């Protein structure tokens, strides 16, 4: 039990003393989650937009499929990505197994269904008069995309935060594809898994708190953006 309290104080100690392993894990986490979020948003928002704004045969089926992918377990994603990125696999020659870009590929697969599904919903629940209004104003498809994103920005920010939460807290993909290599692919979550596996429970708690501090920082930035966007 005392490892809980000990861990709480250790969190601040690790951050304050600039513990190199902790800061390496923080930097690695920030780096890989930024890559994954950027890719998820850049690919997911346009896809979610087209899924939401258009009406086509099979839209319901496609939507159901995307929603089902929201339940894709991270260990399975990790396993699939490993299979593809392994030297024996089709993408082996890129040599990105056990590197952060490899992990980012997996985490993007994790985040995409969230972004697509929530963007589609956000777009669908916008005022129905938006699309015809833009059309009468002579909007190009690109302008249509950007203006709709602007109108739905609050819902999209929430979608981004939901995807971020899922990405930054996952272990399955980072472990399998990253390999938890010290100084290179050891994220905060894989470090927690390692330390608790070594029996160092208070370090595990401490790193968990560190992760929440990082997440708090990110959310504060987004909240600042939200204010400006009003």
């Amino acid at each position, binding site marked *: 039990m005392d490892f809980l309290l000990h861990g709480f104080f250790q969190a601040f100690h690790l951050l304050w003393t600039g513990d190199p392993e902790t800061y390496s894990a923080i930097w690695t986490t920030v780096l890989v989650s*930024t890559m994954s979020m*950027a*890719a998820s948003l850049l690919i997911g928002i346009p896809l979610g937009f087209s899924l939401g704004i258009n009406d086509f045969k099979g839209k319901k089926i496609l939507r159901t499929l995307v929603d089902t992918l929201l339940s894709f377990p991270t260990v399975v994603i990790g396993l699939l990505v490993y299979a593809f990125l392994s030297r024996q696999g089709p993408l082996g020659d890129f040599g*990105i197994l*056990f590197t952060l*870009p490899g992990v980012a590929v997996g985490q993007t697969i994790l985040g995409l269904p969230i972004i697509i599904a929530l963007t589609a919903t956000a777009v669908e629940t916008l005022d129905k008069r938006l699309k015809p209004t833009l059309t009468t104003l002579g909007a190009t498809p690109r302008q249509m995309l950007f203006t709709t994103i602007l109108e739905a920005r609050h819902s999209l920010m929430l979608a981004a935060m939901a995807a971020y939460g899922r990405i930054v807290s996952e272990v399955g993909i980072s472990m399998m594809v990253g390999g938890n290599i*010290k100084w290179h692919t050891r994220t905060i979550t894989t470090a927690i898994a390692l330390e608790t596996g*070594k*029996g160092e429970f208070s370090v595990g708690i401490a790193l968990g708190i560190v992760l929440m501090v990082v997440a708090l920082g990110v959310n504060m930035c987004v909240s600042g953006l939200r204010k400006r966007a009003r």
Partner: protein
Amino acid sequence: MEEALKKLLYAIAALTLMLGTPAYAAKTMILATTTSTANTGLLDELIVPQFAKDTGIEIKFIAVGTGKALKMAENCDVDAVLVHAPAAEQKYVDAGVLIDRTQLMYNDFVIIGPASDPARIKGKKVVEAMKTIAAAKSVFTSRGDNSGTNKKEISLWNVSGMAVPDKEQWYVQTGQNMISTINIAAEKGGYTMTDRGTYIKYEANHKGNAPLKILVEGEKVLFNQYSALAVNPEKCPSVKYDLATRFIKWMASPKTQEAIGKFKLLGKVLFTPNATQ
């Protein structure tokens, strides 16, 4: 607003590309190793820094069970392995997947259990102890994960003339690493088999006063040999065979062997060097 958004997107894309490009490392090699070697701190505290100092090569090691390490070698995803399952290693050597097998160091396996020793196995011979535990239906935790330790434990059941008690209620297959398995045994007041190195680390975690104590030790059948093997470049053209060879030779060199023998926790030696000169 649209311009600002576009600029932001381009900036993120540029940043991602920049940061995502694999950095050109001086010289690095990937080593797959066992969780028991990694969790003792031998790699982090001694091997990796010293090897970097002596040769300028950085070892990126991935700690998984022996079964997985050997499989990763077969997939050409690593350059060398450091494992402790001689029978499994031999299979891969015979198949030509791994080469240059070099014995490096040993310790032994021990059977641990609660100080109260409800099944009364203390001081018994391994075979008798296993039979006693099975007869008493005492909780026994197993790695259950195809690791080197797991393979040894299974061989002990076989040597005692029993099948692995797979479906028994008292046989707890954790599927996790050694420390977690020991912790589960401690929670349930049961027994388990571990390598001495991890046990000493476990003891150190508890500041010398661990709930589980060594009850059975010292027989030849509990001998635990660690070896390094290189991935065959003929089977895997992309592996860094030259770096792997340097690693293995360095591990077997007198200076490194001496340093391994001096690596201690709680004043106890974890691995005894035994590379044949």
